[in-house]
């Protein structure tokens, strides 16, 4: 067992973990942060994406011990005081989720994408999300959501926003 100290969604945790324990299992099994899910065994799907010191990582590809001394943010730490993060709000406004399984990872990756490139083209959004798979949406509305969060006019989604606000 190895002792680790880390911050997750703003709270500090100290725990003893097996060296082979994956960060995603630590989050889920030890901290009960089940908002972060596992979708594959090969780091292809990105469903487990979280932020490690503000940058996106696939938490199935990080050992819990590697997060020692670092700060982790999951989907559960994004909203503050009941206020959705703009990316969460954009996913809702653009109907960018169906079954919801890829959603936490997709949102965490999309936020990182805009950190790198606040005004991405559609092509840059699509390539920036390449490591996150969705089987329900065909990505169409996910791209709209990222455009919306980036403050770009996003075609059909803009009309959606107006009508849902009225």
């Amino acid at each position, binding site marked *: 067992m190895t002792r680790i100290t880390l911050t997750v969604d703003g709270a500090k945790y100290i725990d003893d973990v097996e060296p082979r324990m994956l960060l995603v299992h630590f989050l889920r099994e030890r901290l009960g942060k089940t908002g972060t899910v596992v979708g*594959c065994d090969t780091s292809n799907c990105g469903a487990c994406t979280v932020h490690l010191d503000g940058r996106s990582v696939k938490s199935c590809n990080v050992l819990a011990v590697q997060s020692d001394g670092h700060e982790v943010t999951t989907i559960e730490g994004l909203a503050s005081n009941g206020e959705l993060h703009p990316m*969460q709000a954009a996913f809702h*406004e653009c109907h960018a989720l*169906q079954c919801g399984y890829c959603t936490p990872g997709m949102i965490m990756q999309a936020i990182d994408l805009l950190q790198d490139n606040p005004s991405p083209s*559609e092509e840059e959004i699509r390539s920036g*999300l390449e490591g996150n798979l969705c*089987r329900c949406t065909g*990505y*169409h*509305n996910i791209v709209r959501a990222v455009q919306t969060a980036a403050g770009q006019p996003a075609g059909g989604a803009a009309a959606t926003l107006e009508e849902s606000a009225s």
Partner: protein
Amino acid sequence: MSILGTRVMRVEDPKFLTTGGVYVDDLRDPRLDGAGHVTYVRSVMAHARVTVDGSAAAALDGVLAVVTRADLADLAPPPVPLGFIPPALGRPWLADGVVRYVGEPIAAIVTESRYAGEDVAELVSVDYEPLTAVVDPRVSATDETLLFPDHGSNTALAFEAGSLDGLFDGCDVVVTQQITNQRVAPVPLEVRGTACVWEGDGDDARLTLWASTQSPHGARDQIATALSLDPDRVHFIAPDVGGGFGAKFGVSVEDLLLAVLSRRLGRPMRWTETRTENMLGMGHGRAQLQTVTIGGSRDGRITAYSLDVLQDSGAYPHFGAVLPFMTQLMATGTYDIERIAVRTKSVVTNTAPVVAYRGAGRPEATAAIERAVDMFAAEIGLDPVEVRRRNLFAKEAFPLTTQVGAAYDSGDYAGALDKVVAAAKYDELRAEQQRRRDSGDTKLLGIGVSSYVEITAGPEAGTEFARINVKPDGSVVVYTGTSPHGQGHATSFAMLAADELGVPIERITVVHGDTDLVARGGGTGGSRSLQLGGAAVHQGALETVDRARELAGDLFEAAAGDVVLDKARGGFHVAGSPDDVRGWAEVAASADAEHGLIVDTDFTAQGATFPFGAHVAVVEVDAETGKVTLLSMTTVDDAGPVINPVVVEGQRHGGIAQGVAQALFEEVRYDEDGNPQSTNLADYAFPSAAELPDFTLVDMATPSPLNPLGVKGIGEAGTIGATPAVQNAVVDAVAHLGVRHVEMPTTAERVWRAIQDAREGAK
């Protein structure tokens, strides 16, 4: 103004956006504390006699049990998944001396922790004595090696329609082609998972089982049958489900076993498969070898069509064995063809069972006829859109029954085709294609068209349950027997109830997926939910209003017939006296002060419905490498009136993406010994956002006469229309080089080889 047809954003979203959904593996129910973790030891050979020794593994610390078939000898085999599958082709609980596909469960290990399960699985000793693996369905059909000697044949089922006698007599042109509708994997992002606990003793013992399923009531009945229990002894819960796409309809043997293990060990149990297990064992879709033959006149009239289907059912027949029936039923597609004949046969092979996958039998039918029509058009040198126009069922012909016995309810196929062709600017695309060809551009343009019709909520007329409960506080709870897992019923069904009750959707909640809370239900699959479940909610709401008018009449001391519902004010008054309004709360409380007003209803449709549409795909093909890039998809998908455009567009987008993926990328492959070659998402070409374009959706709504909402199913439409449009586009791009067909997925290598072969052939 009615809320129906307006863009209402989903009410179910906030949880998924903030804390994530609660899928089976996320459950922290205290009844599951101390649960054993189940790990399945799976066959690494496709066909072999096996001897299992789990004693070394069983002796290790932290191992609660190692269970093999011998330990379950007292149990009757699990029932076959569908009634008409021959029982001799049923699967055992665990491999019974013979394994028939890579991934088949051989032993179940129960451990204290999940990590330990994977360690211990390595220590179970399995001796394999190889048998001849039958991987190719054409080899299977020869019956040289029988997978189930007791059955005496590898054929599970066969269907046929129409006569082959003189089928193509009198045709000026006859074109034939073998087509592989390849095996693909459903790949819901959430893999299969199950948790269960028994409470009570002896005959009072009751099982609560959570599983990632599309059909909780059906799954409950399957478990009750397999375990010889009264269904009341099983409480089945579908928590949030991370995608199903047909493959999660019902339960799998791994789910059933969990209940057995839990009972025997006296512990709650959990099981969550890995992605590799999911790719090996959940089942695959499609997997048909087809031969199409199409004949007609040189002026473009198609007069005869035959479709021969050899369905690969995989090792233990499941839905896949039955898919050819749906393929047969939809064989003629949107075309009025005088003579048609279909022959189908489903055979077993040493591969994973073939299950339902989005479209389930209809995409295969559409892919076949749409390729055939394109080949016919190419042969006579007519534009494929024009050939379609000359053969579509006329708008005035509906309702009609096709040559293969499908009762099409309503349609305007030419209208859909015209709309999509106009929206895609088809003529401009053709001009651009010609310009590129003339200039020697190596980036060739391909334009593909499909016209499709499919069947939803069929083949028999369906039924669905709804309960409307108006609470004494005036809020409403809608219970439905459908089981959404992304389809937005909590929003759409609330809209349906709101529209009739005059209660805002913010005060309406929708309950589903729990067999104790919902009396009965058919689940969500086959695009049945809105037209059956939604229609049931609509019917229930109307009946609730009728009942409430009687109750209000009592309050007013007036006849029910004189009481009217003022939807804008959410209350009742006597006609002509609008000032004295009794709200829903008061009226519901007058029915029952504690529970309010409860109305149960079952809606039965007059028949299956037939959504239709037309797609145009545009691809760019690199003539030097064969690489295909999808430039655009424009689609008309007509499923009748739209209740919530937001949800319907999402269903179309997702379906189109999956249809495109089959045409361009995805294929489950086995080598000749039955070793799977695509066991994870690194090997399997599941597309990301980077491989797909935006989709252009064109609206069209032709009502069905078969339910009061006029609606049809939209869940599978995109998948059905998109695949042939894209495949046709790829062939179209290189047709001038002499290519007449390219198999799916149309990978760069396949396209490049097709070009080379055509050049060789031209020499």
